[in-house]
């Protein structure tokens, strides 16, 4: 019977949307194949992962692989561990999240198993046992529709695109401990730095407030920060390249061709002209709002809703109105 494997990521034992999405996709594909869905979680020893919670999204079985060397992402530890599991498991499909971790890990696994990888897919289906996918190409200016001629078929799915679907499955957890020789690793993570003070990353946020050169001065980001706060815990700040290159904002916030590709439910572009390279990173947002004083700015060409006006007048009012609304909820 065909099995589908989902590689579920967690942070300090907590699963985020990416893990639920990847398991949901695996569960759907497994049903179409008439097989079972499995989740695999790699974790440091003693990290309390609620692995069985993935059962609620359709994982029949969950394998937790535990080892001190798996506590933080290290490609060498993860690749050898996962390769062994996949080789032993005879999976028809393996699904990764196209997160920073997944995008680093999946190609290495593909090369080791000698199978192709379809990265960052936005649609996937199985018919007659053949896996077909849709993935954005040319920075989202086109889509390629592909069939994968290999088994297992490896795919990574773009975050925030596939729904998390509740689907009760058994979620039986087994824990295994691999043999890993840490002293063999040629890649070592020596330091981790968080730049976000617990705020969600722009690539994971469901709401993004993004600022461009129209903000005039880095000090004015307090206006965007207030709006972000009013929008709640799932909101993050984004930026155009112009303001990142000027040193006003960190590169981690840059959206676009040479920054992050995002697909939030709501993207608010403030003082951003909407250059084609910026649009490349955000045009698949569900709802786009633009605030710009230039009615001809190209951002209005992709925005669902716009206000033409001075952002310094519009922003405070917008923050107040949204805060009021949410206070009443």
């Amino acid at each position, binding site marked *: 019977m065909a099995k589908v494997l989902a590689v579920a990521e967690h942070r300090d034992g907590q699963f985020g949307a990416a893990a639920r999405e990847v398991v949901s996709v695996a569960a759907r594909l497994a049903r179409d194949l008439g097989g079972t869905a499995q989740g695999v979680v790699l974790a440091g020893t003693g990290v309390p992962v609620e692995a069985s919670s993935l059962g609620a999204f359709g994982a029949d079985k969950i394998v937790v692989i535990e080892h001190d060397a798996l506590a933080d992402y290290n490609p060498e530890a993860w690749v050898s561990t996962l390769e062994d599991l996949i080789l032993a498991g005879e999976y028809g499909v393996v699904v990764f999240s196209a997160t*920073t*971790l997944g*995008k*680093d890990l999946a*190609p*290495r696994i*593909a*090369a080791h198993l*000698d*199978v*192709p*990888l379809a*990265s*960052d897919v936005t649609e996937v289906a199985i018919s007659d046992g053949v896996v077909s996918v849709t993935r*954005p*190409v*040319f920075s989202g*200016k*086109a*889509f*390629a*529709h*592909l069939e*994968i*001629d290999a088994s297992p078929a490896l795919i990574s799915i773009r975050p925030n695109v596939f729904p998390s679907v509740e689907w009760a499955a058994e979620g039986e957890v087994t824990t295994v401990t691999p043999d890993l020789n840490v002293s063999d690793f*040629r*890649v*070592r*993570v*020596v*330091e981790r*730095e*968080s*730049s*976000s003070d617990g705020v969600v*990353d722009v*690539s994971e946020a469901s709401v993004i407030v993004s600022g461009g050169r129209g903000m005039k001065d880095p000090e004015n980001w307090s206006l965007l920060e207030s709006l972000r706060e009013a*929008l709640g815990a799932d909101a993050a700040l984004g930026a155009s390249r112009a303001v990142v290159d000027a040193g006003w904002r960190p*590169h*981690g916030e840059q959206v676009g*061709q*040479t920054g992050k590709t995002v697909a939030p*439910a*709501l993207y608010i572009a403030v003082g951003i002209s909407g250059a084609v*390279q910026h649009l490349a990173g955000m045009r698949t947002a569900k*709802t786009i*709002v633009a605030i710009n004083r230039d009615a001809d700015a190209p951002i209005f060409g992709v925005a*669902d*809703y*716009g*206000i*033409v*006006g*001075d952002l310094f*007048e519009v922003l*405070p009012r*917008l923050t107040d*109105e*949204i805060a009021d*609304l949410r206070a009443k909820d």
Partner: protein
Amino acid sequence: MNVIVCIKRVPDTEARIRIDGSGSSIETSGIKYDMSPYDAFAVEAAIRLKEGLQDEGDVSVLTLGDSSSSETLRKALAMGADRAVLLNGEVSLDGLATAKGLAAELEGSEADLFLFGIKAADDDQQQVGQMVAALSGRPCVSGVSSFEIDGRTARCKREVEGGSEIVEVDLPAVLCITKGSNEPRLPALKGIMAAKKKPLEERPAQVSASRVRLIGLSTPPPRAEGLIVGEGPDAVPELVRILREDAHAI
């Protein structure tokens, strides 16, 4: 320190992408091509490293593509790379086939560093660098925004969700480069002249069969015509109402 940078020729980021009559390739007339943006960051990093170290090492650039890719290699030579190799062949849709072609060329190479862009701006796969590393058994760090060489170790800053990591990797290593603070230089006239005299070798690529089948290309449906809610702060209440009641976005 010897560095090899893998670069790819792709449509310019401004290019308008239209699908041709076959439904499975793009209209190439009128499209300008250039080095993929992240590859330009990788070339810049290699040249800065060489300028900083002032040792005997050199910077090579390598591409797999048709003969028009020699133009992209010349650009890298004009930026300051020393030599170039064109593996002449058809670029596969299957990133692993491309990676195998590059890995075959790099096998036995004694370079210390192999730089890739984090992603090519045409197929957007973000995989070829990591695959080449895995195929050739070299360690690899991806998403590197800056790095320093300390003896036989590269100390890399790696961008991750919500922060960054410092990762050390033993040389020889593969680094997949993302945007950092080094703006890629534009070739100056002197560089362009010098590039004409630099060695550019060409040989056939070894590309295996693609195991990804292209069914077709499509363009995204145009977004529905947007609504200008109004002008200035007075438009805010109506925008907020729409976002709540119609778009269910807040």
